[in-house]
């Protein structure tokens, strides 16, 4: 077991890789009542095509999320009940690249930890339970269809991506999930829930040796599990966008717009992080609430305080999204493009601005470390991406104005821009008479 102390931020991490390949991290937070645990498979909604021992498989869209739902159901009932009986709150979520199962509790920690590990490691699927789940997930898909923000987001993503499964809803579609069988589920579990493809992260106040001993004993009892030779197959995706402009109509009162600037992925983990942070700084300087542009757009009524922007940096894709509720989407789009041109033409990014940015982000980061949930989720994300959450302050320190210029100028390129406008249905009727 390795102990790493991060003195400057007063954090302690204990790490071990067990014989079967499972990686375990324990993050000690003295004085906390809560123990928070996540058990994560590197398997997400984008992993719908893969090659195992030279054989290629295609599985229905939405299966990672479906599998996540089904893992809670066992022959003797619902594991949610068992967590509740043990005084724990359990949950799970699926993203593009991972599936996390989690619980938190203040007592009976080992009992709940065993429950979590067994639940994730021992699948139980039948045709009946799969059939019933289809109904539940269909309702979930329909619920999101009524959410204007969600529809706008997914339409924008679909305008950007041609082949990459990022454009597919994490839950799949009503038709794709109806194709899921128990055999698909067993296959995906065998392939992606191998200990060497998983990471267990615990945050709280622990007896460190005892906790590691407990996990080791449990994992050893599983016996050797042969790793499979797995290769994920992702389609090639160029930077070209699919559809530049799109209008979407819903039963809403307010018009919303989303812009997406598509970028190319970066293979190097450290460069990916540098771009991620540089983009966050750059976008904030340009459009954040402390910028003059923000107030000008606000004063002119082009945006309101629903205005939001983010850079998304993932292993397999990268893009910038901007959105606002507005009466004049065309003016919003032209104003954003003007600001980008202006910034490219002048010396906008300065060391003075950067110092404040760095201080603010560092403060936010330290505040976030109050939260065991934030730590477990972000530690997992950074770790799977080849980086260490607790080294983030060093990386923040290293970012320069030149980094920001380089990445911002490259990312905010109007040649790779898509525009999606969500309008009230009444406008559609007006147009079509």
């Amino acid at each position, binding site marked *: 077991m390795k102990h790493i102390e991060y003195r*400057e*931020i*007063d954090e302690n991490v204990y790490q071990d890789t067990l014989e079967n390949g499972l990686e375990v991290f324990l993050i000690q*937070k*003295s*004085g*906390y*009542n*809560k123990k928070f645990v996540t058990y994560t498979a590197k398997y997400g909604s984008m992993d719908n095509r893969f090659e195992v021992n030279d054989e290629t498989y295609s599985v229905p869209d939405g299966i990672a999320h479906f599998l996540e739902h089904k893992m809670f159901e066992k022959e003797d009932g619902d594991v*949610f*009940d068992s967590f*509740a009986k043990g*005084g*724990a*709150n*359990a949950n799970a979520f699926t993203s593009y690249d991972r599936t996390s199962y989690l619980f*938190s*509790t*203040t*007592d009976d920690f080992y009992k709940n930890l065993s429950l979590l590990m067994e639940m994730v490691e021992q699948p139980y699927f039948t045709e009946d339970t799969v059939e*019933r789940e289809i*109904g*539940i*997930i269909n*309702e*979930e898909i*329909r*619920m999101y*269809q*009524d*959410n*204007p923000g969600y529809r706008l987001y997914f339409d924008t993503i679909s305008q950007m991506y041609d082949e990459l499964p990022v454009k597919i809803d994490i839950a799949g579609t009503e038709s794709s999930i109806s194709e899921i069988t128990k055999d698909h589920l067993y296959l995906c579990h065998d392939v992606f829930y191998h200990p060497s493809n998983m990471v267990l992260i615990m945050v709280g106040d622990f007896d460190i040796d005892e906790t590691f001993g407990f996990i080791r004993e449990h994992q050893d009892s599983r016996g050797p599990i042969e790793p499979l030779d797995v290769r994920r197959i992702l389609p090639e995706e160029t930077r070209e966008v699919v559809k530049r402009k799109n209008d979407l109509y819903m*039963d*809403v*009162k*307010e018009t919303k717009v989303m812009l997406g600037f598509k970028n190319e992925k970066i293979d190097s983990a450290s460069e990916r992080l540098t771009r991620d942070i540089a983009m966050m700084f750059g976008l904030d300087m340009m459009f954040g*609430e*402390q*910028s*003059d542009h*923000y*107030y000008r757009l606000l*004063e002119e*009524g082009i945006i*309101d*305080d*629903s205005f939001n922007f983010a850079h998304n940096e993932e292993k397999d894709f990268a893009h910038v999204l901007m959105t606002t*509720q507005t009466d004049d989407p065309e003016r919003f789009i032209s104003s954003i493009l003007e600001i980008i041109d202006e910034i490219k033409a002048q010396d906008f990014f300065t060391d003075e601005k950067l110092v*404040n*940015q760095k*201080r*603010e*982000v*560092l*403060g*936010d980061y*330290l*505040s976030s470390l*109050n939260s065991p949930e934030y730590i477990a989720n972000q530690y997992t994300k950074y770790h799977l991406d080849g980086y260490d959450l607790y080294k983030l302050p060093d990386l923040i320190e290293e970012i320069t104005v030149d980094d920001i210029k380089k990445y911002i100028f490259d990312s905010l390129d109007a040649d790779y821009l898509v525009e999606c406008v969500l309008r009230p*249905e009444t406008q559609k009727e007006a147009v079509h008479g």
Partner: protein
Amino acid sequence: MYNVETKSINNVPVVFIHTEKFKTINLKVQFRSELRRERVSVRYLLSRMMVKKTGSFSTESEFLNYLAHHYGAHLTSNATKKGRDHMVSFNLEFINSRFVKEDLNFLETMTSVLKEVLATPAEYDEADEQFFEREKRLYKNRLKGLKDNKAQKSFENLLNIMFEDEPYKFLSHGVLEDIDGITLEDIKKEHRQMMASDEAAILISGHLDEVGEESLRGILCRSETVKLPYRGYAFKETEYKAVTERESVEQAKLNIGFRADVKTAEERMALNVINQMFGGSATSYLFKNIREKESLAYQIHSQADIKNGFIFVLAGVSPDQTAKAENAVMHELERIKKGDFTDEFVEETKHLMKVNRKEAVDKPKGLIALVYNQFLNGTTGKDWEEWMDAVDRELILKVADRIHADTVYTLTGK
């Protein structure tokens, strides 16, 4: 692992919550007044304006840059309702200076920021009209945007029907139709009222070694302490109402409001436990039976306002199954009323509620909220445990019997 100490400083109660586990200091000024229609929108707008601009800074970006310079100190306002009250709070979260190499004297700087936040509206003049008008416009847009969220909108519709002539129907974020009529003079008047007549309290949590009374002295001064009664609404007998409206939605929204006659602290706690068993958790009857067993809803839960004795069920269901889902909800409540539950389930539910309470104090905001609640009730954590221990099958049956469906509101497809 925290200690609470209350002092009166300048006739304002100040609650110190000492704990070492957080990396931040959290400072909150809480105002409390009676919930009234003419108050909610004005106060919401006032509180938003207050955290955006203060006297020392000519622009909002200047103010935000100042906070960013202090390691991203976060200043926020919050408006909520509780019991019969409307609450406005101002919160500052900043990192403990031991994580910073330079000497920034955070606490002193932050208390003067807060002092100025509270004082600035008294000086609003014509020069602030433009700022005021813009904030009004943003506020209106925010509420209009909320109405495009069908789940939110249908819950508001339920409240409007259920509490037709009761102030409880006003959400803490105010009433869209009232915004246009607000003047800057209304804002100033409401501010004067809040500063002079509201019950106020200051709460501070974190590693507070260096925090003396002196540093907090300037935030708020009063010539005498204001103490207001803290209570819920009296139980009201009502007629059952059912309303269905149609819009183009993929999924119907089913909302049901219940009233319960609860008087003692133990009864309120029993209502809390009933809510958890009914629809407040992933093992509740609604979740297990309506969502999991019958696949009637993806989303279904109940929430309780125990101070006032209200329970609300919110569900997203298939448009062709609204009646079936409604009957199923009523059936699950009947089961609890008839005692169709095990003692084991009651104990598990109570245990989980205790765990949740312990977990809540692992967050600065959760800790402050819990301590403030004890401050309002004049209680301790021990009282809470005792009330919880008093909840058994007998008390649950007694309280469940007093729960009545008041309003069913369904928003479904065309």
